């Protein structure tokens, strides 16, 4: 159990800086998800915390120690890798016991700790198997087990679910969350999947291009994205970005500035009765909901999300869009949220 504190963390590979100074305070027992598109530096950040990458500048505190110079094994962490990184030549038991053996934990204690983890993860029947004899989900659990038995202060996860199929991913994500709650261990979890981030995080760090664009609780981030990037990244289908202001009584936007409105915050109304008129291109009925694709009278592409029960407008018809102006967000040319 430990807090983690990141202070102005930077990382360069040769001349290229890939992490441009990240600060974060993580409370003991908190579940933090680092989310962002591919290549934004999530793994690099996590690996610096793990001690697998050197830190170019800044300090990482785990508990009350600055760990910058410590070896991974001295940091009191455990890590779950994307490909699980199980030792292919060892049985499930040995995979979990390896770290304990190295630490010279007495045999009976190893036995009981592995058994305990196996029970918790429902792996008891597989302890003698080799990783290749396990299904994807089971392997994932072994990786979890290997982390658990060490009773670390911090769990680090690098996209631990992305090798699983969609169904299993949903199930395992529930299990990981439950486990972390139960053990009360601080967790740092990297993913590029915003749904995973939304559902798992106590707080999430939305990264982009080596910078933390926003840190906050999922629904706060969803409701109040700090930047256009965050607005677009969190939420599906993504926020509509319009280059013409449609709010009543506003002039044209500054060059480069945009407004955003989420597809689920738009209603279909009769032409002329909404904030702006809209030409329906076509509808994609998905059963429970339908996505309406089309173009506003001002010429911006826009998607509306309506309930599956609602009658669909025919392709090519003109209708109006009902939007609560309070729900519209504005962003300046640099992508920062501007108030009102």
């Amino acid at each position, binding site marked *: 159990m430990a807090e983690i504190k990141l202070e102005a963390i930077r990382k360069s590979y040769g001349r290229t800086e890939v992490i441009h100074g990240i600060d974060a305070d993580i409370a003991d027992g908190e579940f933090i998800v680092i989310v962002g598109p591919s290549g934004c530096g999530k793994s690099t950040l996590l690996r610096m915390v793990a*001690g*697998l990458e050197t830190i170019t500048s800044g300090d990482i505190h785990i508990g009350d120690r600055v760990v910058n110079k410590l070896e991974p094994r001295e940091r009191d962490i455990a*890590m779950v*890798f994307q490909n699980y*990184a199980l030792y*292919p*030549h060892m049985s499930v038991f040995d995979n979990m016991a390896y*770290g304990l053996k190295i630490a010279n934990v007495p045999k009976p204690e190893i036995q009981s700790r592995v058994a305990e983890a196996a029970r918790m993860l429902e792996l008891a029947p597989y302890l003698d198997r080799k990783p*290749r004899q396990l299904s994807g989900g089971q392997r994932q659990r072994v990786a979890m087990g290997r982390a658990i038995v060490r009773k670390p202060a911090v769990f680090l996860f690098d996209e631990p679910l992305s090798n699983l199929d969609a169904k299993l991913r949903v199930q395992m994500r529930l299990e990981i969350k439950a486990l972390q709650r139960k053990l009360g261990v601080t967790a740092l979890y990297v993913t590029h999947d915003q749904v995973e981030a939304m559902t798992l995080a106590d707080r999430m760090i939305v990264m982009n291009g080596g910078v933390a664009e926003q840190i906050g609780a999922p629904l706060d981030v969803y409701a109040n994205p700090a930047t256009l990037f965050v607005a677009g990244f969190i939420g599906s289908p993504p926020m509509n970005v319009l280059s013409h202001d449609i709010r009543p009584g506003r002039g044209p936007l500054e060059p480069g500035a945009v407004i955003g409105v989420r597809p689920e915050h738009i209603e279909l109304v009769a032409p002329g009765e909404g904030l702006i008129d809209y030409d329906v291109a076509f509808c994609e009925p998905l059963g429970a909901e339908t996505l309406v694709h089309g173009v506003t009278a001002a010429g911006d592409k826009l998607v509306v999300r309506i309930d599956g029960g609602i009658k669909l407008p025919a392709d090519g018809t003109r209708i109006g869009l009902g939007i609560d102006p309070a729900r519209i967000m504005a962003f300046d040319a640099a992508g920062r949220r501007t108030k009102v």
Partner: protein
Amino acid sequence: MEKRVVFDNRWLPYLLVAPQLLVTFVFFFWPAGQAIYQSAFIPDPFGLKTQFVGFGNFEYLFGNRFYRESFFTTAVFSVLVTVSAMCFALWLAVLADRVIKGSGTYRTLLIWPYAVAPAIAGVLWLFMFNPFTGIVAWSLSQFGYDWNHNLDGGQAMALVVAASAWKQISYNFLFFLAGLQAIPKSVIEAAAIDGASFARRFWTIIFPLLSPTTFFLLVVNVIYAFFDTFGVIHTITQGGPQQSTTILVYKVFADGFVGQDLGSSAAQSVVLLVLVGILTVVQFRFIERRVHY
């Protein structure tokens, strides 16, 4: 594994395999058959007359102390070549795997002995160890060690082993390096997080994970030592002194083309065919195993 999609054609496939089958029959099966047939006869050197002896050649062979010793020699030679070439190569590969910059240069400098013919390797080492003029032999004599592989069986063995292993190191190095680089980095990182030191990681993770490569190289090196080192032995020792470096293939050649004892040579070919058969099975088994790993 079979292809899902195949072509239909009545005669084309036969036409396509024909060249290879023809060559295989003429130059593999016919000679192999000949060897089996001839192993039952003692012909005179010129092939003018011949005596049927049944298994007589085999009796003669296995009754011959030097033939039995040749098995032992082959075993010692193969083990020494394999172990020394593999250990040295593994050591270099582990080092090369650790350097970030310059590994390409090292690789370039290390791989080319592979291109050197065994016979040339033999000539080079013979030159270095020539008892009268060789630079290494001379240097040894400066330390009071007399080098004469023409008389000393142990030295002769050491020399052919060194020359053979030297040539094989590059090959092993390349495979070990590829093997090392194929080990997922994250597994090693996981071990680091689990607290293992470098040495511990090497012996408990890296080396076991390298075992398919190691086993493969073991087979390849043994085959190399068995057959491809002919040129080394022929140029350096001609099997001597006192047959201390006469490995099985050298003996087949020596008895057949030097000793003019065709019956014995044919019988030895048969023995070798059986040996190769066993090695092939091992190799195939191994290929299967590999698929599963």
